[in-house]
């Protein structure tokens, strides 16, 4: 397993795979890893991303329009794995593309393509019997979301069924950038930590060095998604990898992570 946070806090980068195209996502992924990201979440574009804000919706729509499929994202994972054996790679998807492939087949393929873990946005622990069985069979880490609205009973189940890390959603709402990290996040992380020794990563709205530093005070890793997807949207494709590399590097530095 390569999901392992050596730095404090660790940095997880979410990318909508195939935006602007798969080759560029590959270059961006390596740039992120080479500049301090330890785990990548490769987002499978979906036609109906109902947990996502406008930035990831647009990226997803562009990638779907290009015909990017779950299997293309797995191929991408394989290439990244070959180039960066140490990287943590999580396949991040809505459920339906996975259902289309079949849960057992998907888990097998994810393993074969070098993924370490999977996060399914609309999969909750109660519905996860088959998913957990197939993940276990393939020695993959299921990462579940924990929300500020989750009561302790749910946090306990989420913690018990997660492997790799637990994804703590910083605030109620959809993905997207925000100005301030809400106090929800710290309370949630300590709630999760009652039940597990797994690392806890905080995402949704974490968009700059200041946020990363704030998250580092109470959690093990920070997940940066929309801010990077937006940067990619705003940058010509030939310059996207370099821009993301610089941005990720800045996330740890003083006043970095700004554009």
């Amino acid at each position: 397993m390569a999901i392992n946070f050596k730095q404090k806090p660790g940095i997880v980068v979410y990318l909508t795979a195939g935006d602007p195209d798969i080759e560029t996502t590959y270059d961006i992924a390596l740039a992120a890893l080479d500049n301090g990201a330890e785990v990548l979440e490769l987002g499978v574009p979906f036609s109906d991303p109902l947990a996502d804000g406008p930035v990831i919706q647009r990226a997803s729509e562009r990638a779907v329009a290009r015909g990017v499929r779950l299997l293309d994202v797995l191929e991408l994972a394989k290439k990244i794995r070959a180039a960066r054996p140490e990287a943590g790679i999580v396949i991040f998807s809505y459920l339906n593309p996975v259902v289309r492939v079949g849960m057992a087949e998907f888990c097998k393929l994810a393993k074969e393509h070098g993924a370490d873990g999977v996060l399914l946005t609309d999969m909750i622990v109660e519905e996860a019997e088959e998913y957990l069985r197939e993940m276990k069979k393939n020695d993959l880490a299921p990462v579940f979301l924990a929300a500020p609205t989750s009561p302790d009973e749910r946090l306990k189940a989420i913690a018990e069924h997660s492997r790799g890390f637990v994804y703590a959603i910083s605030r109620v709402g959809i993905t997207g950038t925000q100005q301030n990290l809400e106090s929800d996040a710290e309370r949630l992380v300590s709630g999760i930590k009652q039940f597990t020794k797994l690392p806890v990563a905080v995402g949704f709205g974490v968009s700059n060095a200041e946020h990363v530093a704030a998250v580092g005070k109470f959690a093990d890793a920070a997940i940066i998604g929309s801010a990077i997807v937006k940067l990619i949207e705003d940058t010509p494709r030939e310059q996207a990898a370099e821009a993301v590399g610089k941005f990720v590097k800045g996330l740890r530095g003083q006043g970095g992570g700004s554009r």
Partner: protein
Amino acid sequence: MGNPIDQTIAGVNTKEVQRSIGSGRFGAYGGRYVPETLMAALQELEHAYAVAREDGAFQSELDDLLRHYVGRPTPMYFAKRLSEQLGGAKIYLKREDLLHTGAHKINNALGQGLLAKRMGKQRIIAETGAGQHGVATATVCALLGMDCVIYMGEEDMRRQELNVYRMRLLGAEVRGVGAGSATLKDAINEAMRDWVTNVRTTFYILGSALGSHPYPTMVRDFHRVISREAKKQFMEQEGKLPDAVIACVGGGSNAIGAFYEFIPETNVRLIGVEAGGRGTALGEHAARFHGGLPGVLQGTFSYVLQNDAGQVATTHSVSAGLDYASVGPEHAMLHDQKRAEYTYATDDEALNAVKVLSRTEGILPALESAHAVAEAMKVAPTMSTSQAIMVNLSGRGDKDMGILAREMNLEGAKASS
């Protein structure tokens, strides 16, 4: 899809709640596939609904309003001229179109509105396709003094403009949704994003028998009154049950309400009519049982029109209320069990049915309901005059006058015949 692994983690009273309203599984279908943020709200709703359902005070408040405000029971009308013209089975119309606001949708909107009030939620959101659920929700919010935001695809706002004005007049804020094909599915995505963001203060009045548990069960329960009345009325008027019950199927709420009490009566054929649109290619219709595959969309496992990569397809129907890529999970089960049959009517057949029913009976049906009428026009002539069909006339067609005027050339002096 696997079965729930551990139903006790939900916390309070889970087992008791399940005994009362079920697990939300309809065979393999249904379930709860949502972002974790919504789970606490769904469990709170499940619990509140299970308690309300058993509470006589809640039921009598609902019954009283259904009777005096909404206009229940609705008539079971024998469409004599239409039946004679078709020359087969007798056709009865269950007149949900006569309800306050003009469609069956108010049965459910009122039930959920009262539940929201009971739960102390002051902010209501809803999605709408044809605008009938939006109008019903805006109406209930006015009646109960609650704040109301309605999400509606921009394409639907254009084609059901009258209902947009009605919602605004009733005090609701209508938010247009431009994503995707700017129809019902896109409106639900946006309503769910709102709910995820404002979940602590907001009640989502979902408008069809769709979405995550407990919605499909709860919405069905609120529409069950249709078949409960119908059964009794048929016995009184015909001395027997109908040979067939026909209803249009968008998300499936009017159909499940019309079917439900007849499900154990295996001599009664149950026929759901989907939107055949303008062709059988993916994207040209909304007939989920004729080209859809099992999948997960918007919180539930059911039939979904999609491509082989699992991307949800765009859909087309002349009727906004049927123009949706998935279908309620209970229908998916009834389909697989072969207890109900699912067929479709095309845009042209539905438009023709509007005209036929208007001119034989003086009843202008909604374009959605006209799909059911179109199917009745196909099957009645194949049956004997001693047999009887019930068509659930889910709504009236005033909202469709713009489309009808265009499609039927009603603008000139000589309306086509």
